[in-house]
């Protein structure tokens, strides 16, 4: 780059945000056409961590793809585990023991809290607040310790099996989880809300910024907290109940403000709802096996299958097409942030650079999940 500022006749210049930039949390690149500090046009450029997982799925048998699922959304890996397990169980007609379902829900919700905590930390980092990052990591660490006990890994889990889970939970996990719930509940009001949520600078930074209408959400297929921040009451756990969610009592937080603050509040409330879910699931936890009898090599019958789960970022869909063989003939992943990010270009137009980055943070992007 020899020219510091490339001015065209219409006085705009191109700013290349990424693929290595502190605010893109990974290797996303956004080509920004700027007029001063205002964004004239924003084009996300994807694919820097594309690994062709869908082709890999076609290369092995059904069980062999399970570890790959966690490599996509490394923040909510258990939901990806669960989504893949669900679609294969649907195709192969496998019944899951009840205890396994409860364990799945408990671990997935714990993982969801961990994911939201990390989002919160990274979002505050985008806004220039470094301290909340360490507070959130402190809590997240507790979750990772708990999950490590039963799943064996801390980030890229491969915990679910077709027809159950890999490992039963023990009493230590249950008491640890209960302690964690108590701990997070006591820390939420002071550390999270008093320090950050009610902070005037934060409110001024994200209130009325990044306005997404419900119609825009629908046109772009946005789901998860992005849609719920725009007044859309859509959560796969309620709208299309799976697993044991219908038996549990929890609310879906919905905010009508459509701005970054609304998305922020949705996620903060979701942490509390997840705590509720875990608590109830622990109370109701039945005895029994955690793994159904399943043949080693699955051969689901020919057909089209679709199943969705709710990850921390929105609706994750698996479109599975089988030809009766022992490998998935076609496995397409509908990753939530892929759709959520496609909004960015339209909404970021005319925004200030700083606001656009705050808005991008509020979308909660996990790049490997977009690029797959």
């Amino acid at each position, binding site marked *: 780059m*020899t020219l510091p500022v490339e001015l065209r006749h219409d006085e705009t210049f191109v700013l290349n945000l990424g693929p290595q*930039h502190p605010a893109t949390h990974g290797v996303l690149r956004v080509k920004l056409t700027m007029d001063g500090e205002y964004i004239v046009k924003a084009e996300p450029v994807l694919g820097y961590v594309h690994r062709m997982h869908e082709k890999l799925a076609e290369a092995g048998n059904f069980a062999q793809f399970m570890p790959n699922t966690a490599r996509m959304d490394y923040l909510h890996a258990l939901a990806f585990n669960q989504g893949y397990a669900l679609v294969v169980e649907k195709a192969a007609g496998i019944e899951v023991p009840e205890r396994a379902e409860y364990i799945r829900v408990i671990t997935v919700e714990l993982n969801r809290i961990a994911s939201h905590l990390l989002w919160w930390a990274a979002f505050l980092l985008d806004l*220039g607040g*470094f*301290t909340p990052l360490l507070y959130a990591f402190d809590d997240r660490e507790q979750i990772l310790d708990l999950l490590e006990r039963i799943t064996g890994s801390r980030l890229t889990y491969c915990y679910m099996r077709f027809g159950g889970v890999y490992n039963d939970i023990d009493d230590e996990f249950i008491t640890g989880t209960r302690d964690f719930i108590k701990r997070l509940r006591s820390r939420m009001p002071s550390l999270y809300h008093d320090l950050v949520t009610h902070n005037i600078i934060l409110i*001024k*930074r994200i209130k009325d910024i990044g306005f997404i209408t419900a119609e825009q959400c629908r046109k772009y297929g946005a789901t998860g907290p992005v849609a719920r921040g725009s007044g859309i009451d859509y959560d796969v756990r309620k709208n299309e109940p799976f697993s044991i969610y219908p038996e549990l009592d929890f609310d879906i937080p919905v905010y009508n403000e459509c701005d970054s603050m609304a998305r922020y509040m949705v996620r903060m409330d979701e942490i509390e709802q997840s705590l509720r879910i875990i608590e109830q699931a622990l109370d109701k936890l039945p005895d029994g096996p955690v793994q159904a009898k399943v043949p080693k090599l699955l051969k689901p019958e020919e057909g089209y299958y679709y199943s969705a789960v709710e990850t921390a970022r929105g609706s994750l869909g698996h479109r599975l097409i089988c030809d009766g063989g022992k490998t998935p003939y076609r496995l397409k992943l509908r990753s939530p942030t892929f759709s959520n990010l496609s909004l960015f270009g339209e909404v970021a137009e005319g925004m*200030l650079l*700083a606001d656009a980055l705050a808005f991008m943070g509020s979308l909660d992007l996990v790049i490997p999940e977009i690029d797959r």
Partner: protein
Amino acid sequence: METSIWRPILYLVGIMAFAGLNAAYLGWCERKGAGRIQRRPGPKEVGFAGLLQPLADGIKLMTKQLMVPQGVDGIIFRVAPVIAMIPAITSMVVIPFSGNIQARAMELSVLLIFALASLGMMAVLLGGWASGNKYAIISSARAVSQNLAYEIPMLLTVISIVMISGSMNLRDIAIDQQGGFWHWNIFRFENGHFLYMWIGFIIFFICSLAETNRAPFDMAEAESELVAGYMTEYGSMGFGLFMMGEYLNIVVGACLTATLFLGGWDCPFGLTPGVWWFLLKIYVLIFTVIWVRWTYPRTQIYRLLNLSWKILIPFSLVNVLVTAALIKVF
């Protein structure tokens, strides 16, 4: 006139040592303070409680190669970090550390500090420009508009202090506040200045945060937006000098605040005034700056400018008017 050569030399060495130690150890203080605020220990490996960490950092920075990327304006790129250091060190000359520790009690010392501060802005501007990087240019543009915007309320507040003290000499201003905290400008209760100068103090403190590019006003190096702002292309000691210049600016700002508002070297209860009180005050102020930095998120450049033009400048103007009126009446 006593013309001993030793006095200037001693002050030269003293100021350089004070500046150097502050520049190095404020980095340590910042990291330790941030660590405590974030419930972690901070640096602790090198030396006792990490006290040798600045030395290690310094050695590391100095032994690294000074990279001059292709396409930059070489001379200006190399000179800019030096310019960043000059005004901060030079300002120390006129700061009254105590009644008898001051290199030079210039009649216009307040003015000198502000004149030099504007020189520091030049360093940011030139460094950003010479880097030939778009982020650096945006950052420079931000830094200049921010500094211009905050210099005005800062100077206006200082004018009201100068009117009260009747002098631009920092030493005279400090002497004017001797004899207990009720004489300090922030709590001033004489000549009709009924306890409103704390408004000026707050304005001044906010402005000094903005002028020294500290969070929540660190627009020029907003790392989540502009990578590292004007320092993006700098490494090794070029970066080190910018960092040290920034810390020294904080020290100068704290010294100025302590002298203008907090009675300089005066003891709050009128006992044993001396340099220790001055140092205590400036380090409390510096700690506050660090505390703010690690507590608040960053604001946004347009809100920052609005804060100055729409709130601080009107308030400081009214402050000047009220002060003038009260001086006239009483």
